[in-house]
């Protein structure tokens, strides 16, 4: 049995003293794309932020393993340097820090022009990161940011929300390209995606869907089947797959 790229074991998390995640188990093998569904406040964004190591989330018990190494005590930059990357839902505006300066700081200047073209993001090099960006521009930048780093595991927090119809295909294709292999020898990249609208499912090959409710993963299923059920019946599991073990 191969070691999963990400392995979360009985994870409990609190934020500012309040419990937000209650015993999540989740394994994602290399090359798979998993999708998290759930109502607002169910803990999806908290889970992604915890994996990335962001404040104010604190692991109270349980473990997070990445590439066979326990990471739940590592600072955020070390996790990123190991190959984790995240597309933020509401990233901060960085006044005075241009897209160009950011790109130079992560050592990806050579890629900026070509990757920006694919996302219709040309002309933003001199703009301050996320400052004055529209909702859709923020999401396109967040994807572009990941394309510039090509992390082994990408965490997407609602990548399509706020993106206008004109650009949603570009965003979807960019994510699909990000998760694809650069060369035949390059293994497919891995992803955990939060989506509310499900639009993104039209563009990426998703392998597993998980339903998260009240800080717990209550079931897992084929992502399209699960999303169709949620659209029709709300946030519950389809009858056939209900009560599937939390561990995949």
């Amino acid at each position, binding site marked *: 049995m191969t070691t999963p790229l990400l392995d979360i074991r009985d994870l409990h998390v609190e934020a500012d003293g309040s419990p937000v995640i209650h015993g999540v188990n989740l394994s994602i093998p290399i090359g798979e794309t998993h999708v998290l569904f759930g109502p607002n406040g169910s803990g999806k964004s908290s889970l992604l932020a915890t994996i990335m190591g*962001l404040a104010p989330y604190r692991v109270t018990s349980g473990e997070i393993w990445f590439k066979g190494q326990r990471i739940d005590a590592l600072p955020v*930059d070390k996790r990123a340097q190991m190959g984790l990357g995240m597309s933020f839902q509401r*990233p901060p505006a*960085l006044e*005075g*820090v*241009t897209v160009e*300066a950011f790109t130079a700081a992560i050592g990806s200047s050579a890629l900026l022009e070509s990757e920006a073209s694919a996302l219709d993001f040309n002309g933003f090099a001199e703009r301050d990161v996320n400052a004055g960006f529209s909702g859709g521009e923020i999401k396109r930048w967040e994807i572009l940011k990941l394309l510039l780093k090509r992390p082994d595991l990408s965490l997407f927090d609602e990548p399509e929300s706020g993106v206008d119809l004109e650009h949603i295909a570009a965003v979807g294709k960019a994510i699909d390209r990000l998760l694809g292999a650069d060369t035949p020898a390059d293994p497919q990249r891995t992803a955990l995606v939060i989506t509310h609208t499900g639009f993104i499912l039209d563009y990426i090959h998703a392998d597993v869907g998980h339903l998260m409710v009240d800080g717990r993963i209550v079931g897992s299923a084929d992502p399209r089947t699960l999303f169709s059920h949620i659209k029709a019946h709300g946030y519950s599991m389809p009858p056939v797959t209900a009560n599937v073990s939390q561990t995949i």
Partner: protein
Amino acid sequence: MATLLGADITPEEKQQLAPVGYSIEGEHSATCVLVDQDVRHIAVNDPDVEILPLKDALTRYDWVQDLMFKLINPTENDHVAQAAESRHAPVGHFIRVRKGAKVRLPVQVFTLLETPQGRQFHHNITVIEEGAEVEMISGSAVPPSVHAGHHLSISETYLREGATCRSVSIEHWGPAMEVHSYARTHVGTNARVIESNIQVSPVKHHYSQSRTVIEDGGVSNDQSVIFAPAGTGRVMESEIHLKGVNARSESIARMVTGGGTITNRTTLVGEGRDTKGFLGCNGLKLSDEGEILSVPALRARSAQAQLSHEASIGMIDQAKLSYLMASGMSEDAARDLIVQGFLNLDAQQLPEAIRVEVSRTIAAANSGAL
């Protein structure tokens, strides 16, 4: 090239001045370097620019004496009174840009204090004549071997009607030095001055005082980038007088303390009709050490003066730090990027070499290397 005074400065001196803006003289309309108490080097490539030691200008042009101590009161304080009453010939430069000239290449002017525990006392006068346009780079530096000393300067700058001057000033003094500077600027009718002041290197105590008077239709825009690492104390006191009808001013100070103290008192005075002015004072504190005191003040003497100010002091936002670190930057690199963004170095239109040096200085201070 017409070298008017002295031999070339040495390669070592050029190297010391490079971080504060010195570059190839052939790419500048004029170069002037003051070393200790001498006007060591003047080279002029453009007939529309004239540079002389001030003592020579006083004897060559009888009108220059009328410009000296015209913008600053000789009894302003002990420092200025000492200069006014000195029996020695003044040391400093006289720069003149002739009427109507559109000077294509920048003028570069530097001050170097080479003697440990040296005392510098300079008085500089600049006249941009009617309708002339010029860009100036000025820098102050010490060699690495000089830590302590005292630099005192008085500058009086005149922009005649319709003149334009864009200037960048960079200071890099010794960490145990005392510096006192008194700057006075008269912005004539429809004249325009655009200034960037960069003070990021460690210095024991730097007191700078400035007063700008703007006549009818005149414009003054200045931006200051101020950094105080631990052990550095900076005090800035400035007054901007919107004297004439329709005079305009915008003054922006961005201050960061990495453990040093910064005091910034700026007063904007609306005297003329239909004047408009803005003060922006933003501070960033990198640790619990040090202090920033920001006191922007508005004084309206005309009922038709529109004056406003904005002031803030904060710390580095943890969310911004985490966001950058989530792309793999170390905490130090993320802090540097945020600080440099806050200081808005890109907006200063700095020469690349200076931008690199400023970034390096801030990074070194952040990492505790200074």
